[in-house]
């Protein structure tokens, strides 16, 4: 099986130096791939198990000699236990140092650590067995512990190689003792003294051991290999998903930029259209006013009347053009870009300039009631002025006697503006359609585009406010009261951004 793992490489020297300087097991662990984390964990478990093995050997030797009266020289066994203890100390530090390695290096180093550990253990186990009865020692099957470990932490091929090393070592030992090339340590009181020379038994034990060693290597590498493959697939899938997400995000932001661009172009286009539609009308009207004002000589009353009519019709058209092209501009969100903190009192005062005299000419009282606190709202001053001018001039237009009153009320979250009049009122059946485009009241004779209220509604709603109309007197339907609200500063901030 190919064990070439594609892992991200650390390109930055400083980064790797930084990771190395970190204390063992710190945050660097979170950057490891699942496969790397698993390897570090497993090698760590292997080291911990070895502490138990040292204790186990000492305990087994003590029990064998003291409890079961098995007699054999125990000194070499204790010395070997000490050796295992010492080298395990070294392995413990080596294994811990893995946790400070940058990702990508861990797999290679971890495998080296595991290789050396397994090999050392195989050698020491063989030596230990030699001093503790050779083939007669039932702990001969401990070779399995190491080959299984190799199967868990190392690639398949390496695991089989180590299994072969294990089988060769014990076979070598057993046959050297069998041949008398090395002395056999007899476990007196446990086994018959000459059994290690029975060839059939020796072969049977070796074959059983070898079968177990290779069999367990096959099972562990098969299971672990599959597990490692899955871990790798998962990591690759995660990378791929992340890449795809990033790509999608980039695409979306590019589209947003494009849309914003198109919107800006459209707004600009509308501005130019308004300008070009207005320009000839403006020139025409200026020429007519020039004549009306007498710069070209005296004109008759009849001529004056006709020219004044022409000026009024041009005025209507100019208003219609401005209103019509205002709608898409409001709807593409232009208002939110004009918004800033403004004083509503100031806006209202400005919008009433000029309307005062119009009311006076009609003999109407224009009452204004504003809070002294002068509440500030987050809004587009020019647009709110447009709403006020529209509502107040409507009130003046449709009122023949009485008064038009403007009342500003400051609430906790918004400012409410009421414009009421004692005029002709609105028919109940007209109420629901009053704020729709081009709607004109059935009892209305004055000229108008029928867009004023619908534009006002759009402006108020773009501020996050509400606008509505009521009949102050539900019985006679005389007079009307328009109310709109504008959220105070901050209330609209989150929505506007």
């Amino acid at each position, binding site marked *: 099986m190919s064990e070439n793992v594609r892992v991200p490489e650390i390109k930055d020297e400083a980064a790797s130096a930084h990771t190395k300087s970190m204390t063992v097991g710190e945050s660097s662990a979170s950057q490891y791939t699942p496969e790397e984390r698993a390897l570090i964990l497993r090698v760590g478990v292997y080291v911990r198990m070895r502490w138990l093995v040292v204790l186990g050997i000492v305990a087994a030797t003590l029990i064998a000699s003291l409890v079961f009266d098995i007699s054999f020289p125990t000194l070499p066994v204790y010395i070997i236990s000490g050796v295992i203890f010492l080298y395990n100390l070294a392995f413990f530090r080596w294994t811990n140092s893995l946790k400070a390695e940058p990702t990508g290096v861990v797999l290679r180093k971890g495998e080296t650590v595991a290789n050396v550990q397994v090999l050392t253990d195989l050698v020491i186990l063989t030596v230990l067995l030699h001093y503790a009865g050779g083939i007669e020692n039932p702990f001969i099957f401990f070779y399995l512990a190491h080959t299984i470990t190799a199967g868990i932490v190392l690639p398949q091929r390496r695991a089989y190689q180590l299994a072969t090393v294990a089988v060769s070592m014990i076979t070598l030992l057993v046959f050297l003792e069998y041949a008398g090339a090395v002395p056999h340590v007899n476990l007196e009181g446990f086994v018959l003294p000459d059994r290690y020379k029975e060839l059939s038994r020796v072969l049977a034990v070796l074959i059983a051991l070898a079968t177990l060693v290779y069999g367990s290597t096959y099972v562990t590498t098969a299971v672990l290999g599959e597990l490692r493959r899955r871990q790798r697939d998962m990591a690759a899938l995660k990378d791929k998903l992340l890449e795809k997400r990033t790509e999608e995000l980039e695409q979306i932001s590019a589209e947003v930029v494009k849309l914003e661009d198109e919107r800006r172009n459209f707004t*600009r286009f509308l501005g130019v259209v308004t300008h070009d539609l207005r320009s000839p009308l403006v020139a025409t009207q*200026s020429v007519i006013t020039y004549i009306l004002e007498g*710069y070209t000589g005296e004109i008759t009353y009849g001529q004056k009347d006709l020219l004044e009519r022409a000026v009024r019709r041009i005025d209507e058209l100019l208003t219609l053009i401005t209103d019509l092209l205002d709608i898409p501009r409001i709807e593409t969100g232009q208002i939110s870009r004009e918004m800033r903190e403004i004083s509503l009192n100031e806006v209202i005062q400005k919008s009433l300039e000029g309307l005062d005299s119009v009311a006076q000419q009609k003999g109407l009282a224009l009452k204004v009631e504003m809070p002294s606190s002068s509440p500030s709202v987050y809004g587009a001053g020019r647009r709110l002025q447009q709403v006020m001018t529209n509502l107040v001039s409507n009130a003046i237009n449709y009122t023949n006697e009485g008064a038009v009153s403007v009342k500003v009320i400051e609430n906790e979250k918004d400012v409410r503006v009421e414009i009421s009049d004692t005029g002709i009122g609105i028919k109940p059946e007209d109420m629901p359609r009053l704020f729709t485009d081009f709607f004109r009241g059935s009892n209305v004779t004055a000229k108008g585009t029928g867009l004023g209220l619908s534009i006002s509604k759009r402006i108020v709603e773009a501020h996050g406010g509400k606008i509505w109309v009521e009949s102050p007197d539900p019985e006679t339907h005389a007079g009307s009261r328009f109310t709109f609200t504008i959220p105070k500063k901050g209330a609209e901030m989150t929505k506007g951004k």
Partner: protein
Amino acid sequence: MKRKPKILIVDDDVDLVQVMKGALESKLFEVIVAHNGKDGLQKAKSEKPDIVILDIMMPVMDGWAFAEQYNKDPALAKTPVLALTSFSDSLGQPFPFQVSEYMQKPLKPKDLIAKVEGHLKRLGL
């Protein structure tokens, strides 16, 4: 004798210019006309008018570019500029230059005269 106030009109609309010129000349002002920003800038430098009446949308050099150049020249920047435009608004943004007054067309000739006279009075003319 008090000298005649000099007024520069920078506007590409010939009909509008004729009306404005006629109205202002009736007040015995001297009126100079330029039909684009570039021409206007040259005439502003050579003729040294007391007031400039400026249109925004013009060929060759528009009012924005005109005002930008104009404000850079310390000799000119003192002279008041009345910006007049057929835009229904400033496209949602404040104009990026200083003008003394910004007005939307149409403006009645007598209102134009009143504005100009107001500025002349402030200049002591």
